[in-house]
């Protein structure tokens, strides 16, 4: 359970909280339904939420729709008020002025990633949304994973494709108050993806599964940030975190390649972060320096976040770092050779195990 380290907030925290609340009070709220493919049911969930809100007495208006819907969705649409879109040469855009004039409490906008036709005041729909939020109108919208700018590379790695029209990273990070992931089994997509052969169907299924995983992890990391900021704004600094964070400690005395690979693998399998530290030492011999450089080079290649720590006491430096970053597993090597080194490493292991409360200690043979 989180414990309050002190019930009083620092002036910075207080200021951040006030600014946050003021911004919230002025602007409309943005809620985003995030899906991994078309047909997962984003529109349905968004419109169904609109229907329920309207039942509860909220003033809900539909401002943009997709060209076609399954029959279930059509049934909900019957119950909702709509502001027609503007059409320029078969292309649609939200009638922003009409929406502002009507000024509903909540605007439902299906498809956040649309590009507006030439000649519209805003080039992109997300800019329309931004404008509505500034006017104090709350927006509920939908978006597919592949339209998020910051996921472009990962999506391309999975699908081999890149979409041209994306929503800039900053927009959702800064403006979205709530993100909900709309999950569904690829077998239950509302519009069946057409595959030419069984093999390509298998490949498609695999891609969809990877996209789906990505959507869940993206949502998890948004939630993780939300947890952190919640804890910070409430003056809490400890929590039972959920994300695994793996730390590998490398030394100048042994080749850490296997330990690094194993740490990387744990980080991947647990979908966690991967950190590598080294506690600085003076007067390294030439071979020691080479081993250390090699270890750090390999750590970089494996995509670790590397930090060189200062301090006389290895254990203390490592633990201080681990607690600051929220490490959940510490990998530390132990020499299999006998003699003095064994005793020194033995004592580092010993001290870590004693002091690393709440952290797993992985003693790795070297």
């Amino acid at each position: 359970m989180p414990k309050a380290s002190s019930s009083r907030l620092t002036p910075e925290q207080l200021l951040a909280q006030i600014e946050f609340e003021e911004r919230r009070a002025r602007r409309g709220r943005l809620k985003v339904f995030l899906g991994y493919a078309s047909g997962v049911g984003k529109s349905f969930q968004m419109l169904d939420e609109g229907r329920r809100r309207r039942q509860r007495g909220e003033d809900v208006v539909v401002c943009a729709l997709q060209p076609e819907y399954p029959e279930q969705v059509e049934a909900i649409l019957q119950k909702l008020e709509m502001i027609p879109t503007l059409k320029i040469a078969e292309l649609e855009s939200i009638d922003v002025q009409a929406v502002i004039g009507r000024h509903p409490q909540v605007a439902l906008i299906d498809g956040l990633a649309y590009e507006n036709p030439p000649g519209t005041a805003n080039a992109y729909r997300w800019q329309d949304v931004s404008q509505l939020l500034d006017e104090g109108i709350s927006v509920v919208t939908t978006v597919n994973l592949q339209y998020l700018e910051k996921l472009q590379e990962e999506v391309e790695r999975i699908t081999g494709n890149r979409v041209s029209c994306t929503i800039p990273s900053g927009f959702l990070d800064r403006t979205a108050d709530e993100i909900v992931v709309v999950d569904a089994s690829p077998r239950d997509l509302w519009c069946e993806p057409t595959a030419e052969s069984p093999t390509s169907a298998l490949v498609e299924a695999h891609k969809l599964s990877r996209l789906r995983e990505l959507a869940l992890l993206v949502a998890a990391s948004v939630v993780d940030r939300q947890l952190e900021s919640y804890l910070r704004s409430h003056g809490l600094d400890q929590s039972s975190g959920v994300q695994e964070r793996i730390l590998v400690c490398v030394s100048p005395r042994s080749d850490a390649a296997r330990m690094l690979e194993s740490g990387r693998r744990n980080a991947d399998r647990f979908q966690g972060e991967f950190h590598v530290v080294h506690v600085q030492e003076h007067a390294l011999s030439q071979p020691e320096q080479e081993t250390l450089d090699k270890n750090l080079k390999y750590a970089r290649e494996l995509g670790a976040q590397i930090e060189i720590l200062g301090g006389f006491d290895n254990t203390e430096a490592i633990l201080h770092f681990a607690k600051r970053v929220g490490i959940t597993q510490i990998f530390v090597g132990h020499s299999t050779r006998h003699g003095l080194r064994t005793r020194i490493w033995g004592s580092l292991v010993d001290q870590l195990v004693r002091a690393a409360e709440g952290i797993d200690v992985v003693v790795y043979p070297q």
Partner: protein
Amino acid sequence: MFLGYAAGVGKTYRMLEEAQRLKRQGEDIVVGYFEPHGRKDTIARTAGLEMMATKTINYRGVALQEMDTGAVLVRRPAICIVDELAHTNVPGSGRQKRWEDVQVLLDAGINVMSNMNIQHLESLNDHVFDITGVRVRETVPDWLIKSAAEIVMVDATTEALLNRLKRGVIYAPETAQRAIENFFRESTLVALRELALRETAHELDVRGTTDTTEEPTGVSSSSRAVEKGTRDRILIYVSADPSSAILIRRGRRMADYLCADCFAVGVVPYRNNRLTGRADAIETHLKFARNLHIETRILQGEDPSEMIVQFARSNQVTQILLSRPKHRSWGVLMGTDLILRIVREAKDIRVIIVAEHRRLHHPSAVRGS
């Protein structure tokens, strides 16, 4: 399986929505058990579905309803909806847990759609306790979830959930107030939500690696290359200490995440007349491990560290899991301590000293991404 992170996120609603869709497609679908909780919107979703009659069981003068598994077997639908998988049946219902009834349906060739919350997953029991301070008693073994053909995450934002709670949609007012003080604290909900998202992603990841024997080219992640050719084998050292249960759950999880084989091993001395209590405790722990589908073994010998390391060697174990010693029982001389002896003797085997509580120190500084 529809997976959620708290009551009221919409698991049942979503499941019934799905049932309606399947029915429209002409599937033979029935509702074997439905828990209305007085939620109007959810109840409306059952309209037009075939609802099986439940079985009434009198327990201490109260008439309680359970699924009539026998009747579902006789009716033999293609698909059966079973609400709240983690539910414990009333004594006298035939089977202890609802998930056991579900097993019976599955064995009979009936497809089942069901739902549960992340906190009911057995291997997460300690983690959930650390997050919520609540020891969840109704658990579902992990292997059951692993065997599910499909897992779908039912997400809702914590804001939406708290609003629903305040509007009295989820619980009656007095229960709602108690809920806000326990499970429904915002930070708790956020943590559970993250846990459920990650768990679902993990389940997809596992299925992605095991379902398709040949991974389509161009979609393998960098991580998969690193792990090729290594199958981990995990040994969990089970003692009489209660912390062994935590170690077993963690071992189960670790094995699942690393796609590893897993053993739970206890060591009992030859002459244990005076120590039967200890042997019993070890046996109880091993039984718990077997319930989680972990292979177990009892070794006889005087020196646990030696026995464990020997067993590990001859069984190609790659990781040994040990409980973190409590301060009181911690020997000052490292040579006498079990952990350090195992570390020293295990040589080429990884030794993992598992933290009892994952009460983590959350980052207080902003991390670079």
